[in-house]
């Protein structure tokens, strides 16, 4: 008696009632079920079911947007793990850093990874923006997604900046002092904004708590929301831009054709009825 191969075994698994109830489909062998795999899934439905082959080439995007998103995931995971060891209070914050270095298993790696990913994300998001600019990816109909991207750039900077204070060492304290002093120069509302952000006139216990809440709750939620909109708009605006230079190379011919009958049908057509 022959044992089923891995493929056969997977095929059987995908045909089970449980699999179908979870994924709303059987094996994805036809284009129809492959489309279902995308828009029958809450997490994948924001991406288009079909993409242009060109937009998948490495040189088209360098996968910069994907890398920024990967970094966001890595930062979320390492960030949540770091939250398990961190108290947002002036006396404990710094000793928690020492604990991460000397007590917690792999604490050094955890903090290194979070810090490295944060710095890399700022770099990658800037690079992504410049790349999209030079490829002309902001042109209609993608104008608004460019604006969403600018919001995401600012959120990335604020996320990185609010995280900078949390270790509560000299580096953190004075970097935030330099930055928040600038806010005070904004005409009319500067001092009030600074007071609101720091919870006082100087950087102390309150500022640490507020930066912690901003860094761990408010800004990540906003970033997640805008990332979802950003992805969804890629699909709605007609897929990834393949770049003006490549589009220009496409042969384009306009020909006048004598159309015998141009039929405009409003309402349900027979084909649609058949599909249903």
């Amino acid at each position, binding site marked *: 008696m022959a044992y089923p191969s891995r493929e056969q075994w997977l095929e059987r698994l995908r045909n089970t009632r449980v699999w179908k109830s979870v994924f709303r489909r059987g094996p994805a062998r036809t284009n129809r079920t492959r489309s279902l795999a*995308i828009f029958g899934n809450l997490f994948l439905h924001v991406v288009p079911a079909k993409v242009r082959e060109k937009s998948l080439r490495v040189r088209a995007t360098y996968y910069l947007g994907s890398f920024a998103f990967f970094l966001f995931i890595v930062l979320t995971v390492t960030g949540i793990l770091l939250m398990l060891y961190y108290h947002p209070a002036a006396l404990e914050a710094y000793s928690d850093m020492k604990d991460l270095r000397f007590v917690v298993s792999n604490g050094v790696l955890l903090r290194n990874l979070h810090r490295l990913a944060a710095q890399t994300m700022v770099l990658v998001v800037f690079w992504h923006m410049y790349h999209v600019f030079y490829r002309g990816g902001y042109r209609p109909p993608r104008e608004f997604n460019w604006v969403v991207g600018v919001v995401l750039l600012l959120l990335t900077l604020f996320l990185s900046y609010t995280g900078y204070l949390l270790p509560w060492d000299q580096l953190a*304290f004075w970097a935030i002092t330099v930055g928040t002093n600038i806010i005070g120069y904004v005409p009319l509302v500067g001092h009030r904004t600074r007071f609101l952000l720091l919870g006082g006139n100087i950087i102390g216990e309150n500022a640490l708590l507020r930066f912690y809440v901003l860094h761990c709750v408010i800004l990540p939620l906003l970033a997640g929301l805008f990332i979802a909109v950003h992805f969804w708009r890629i699909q709605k605006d007609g897929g990834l831009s393949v770049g003006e230079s490549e589009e220009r190379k496409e042969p384009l011919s306009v020909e006048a054709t004598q159309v015998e009958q141009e039929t405009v049908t409003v309402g349900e057509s027979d084909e649609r009825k058949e599909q249903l």
Partner: protein
Amino acid sequence: MSEKNSYEVGFGSDAVKNPQRIVFITKKTSAKVKGAQPRQLMSYPHVVLREIIAFEIFTVALVVVALFWDAPLEQLANPLLTPNPAKAPWYFLGLQELLHYLPPVVAGVLIPTLVVVGLVVIPYFDVNIKGEPLWASNRRRRLAAFMGGVAVLLIVFGIHEAFDVVVPTVAFAALALAAYFAPPQGGRLMRYLRAQPLSWWIMSWFIAVSLTLTLVGTFFRGPGWSLVWSWR
């Protein structure tokens, strides 16, 4: 006017048996644009698999770097002990460098606001959709306007002795002039530069200036924000 369009309108009462419809039948010539249909792939599995593989490779690379590159941790925060110089995170050091030259309201508030507003309005002010090169037509007038803009920038930043803004600006003006006067055949660089629209020149200048400011602020500023060689 040509002959009157003949059309028929019909609809049924039973929506299931006879779906409601309106049909226009016209006789006319219409233009049809034929572009080469780009090849398309199904996102599942092509995109999903690629993203998963990219994610795995990227995460492994990140972990390897993180194993060897320690995050810095200095002494406990002390409000009474100001380090000299006190530096912002690296991505704000360009701004801090500007702050050294210009009044705080300009460097800390006006310029960042202008940059963000400028970025947001890029797609809405892109009047040059076709990407016509800067030096393609109207050459004399454009050169005058371009050089006027460069002169204003050089005067503003020259007065404040902001050398790390002036140097990249002069370099870009020189490149633009070279592209303007280069013979039509020219080298590869000149042919590339001559094909660029105004938006390319502005963005590239902006990137060059912010890179220079950030690098100088990060590596060449010491006590009292004086110029130092970071390796000495």
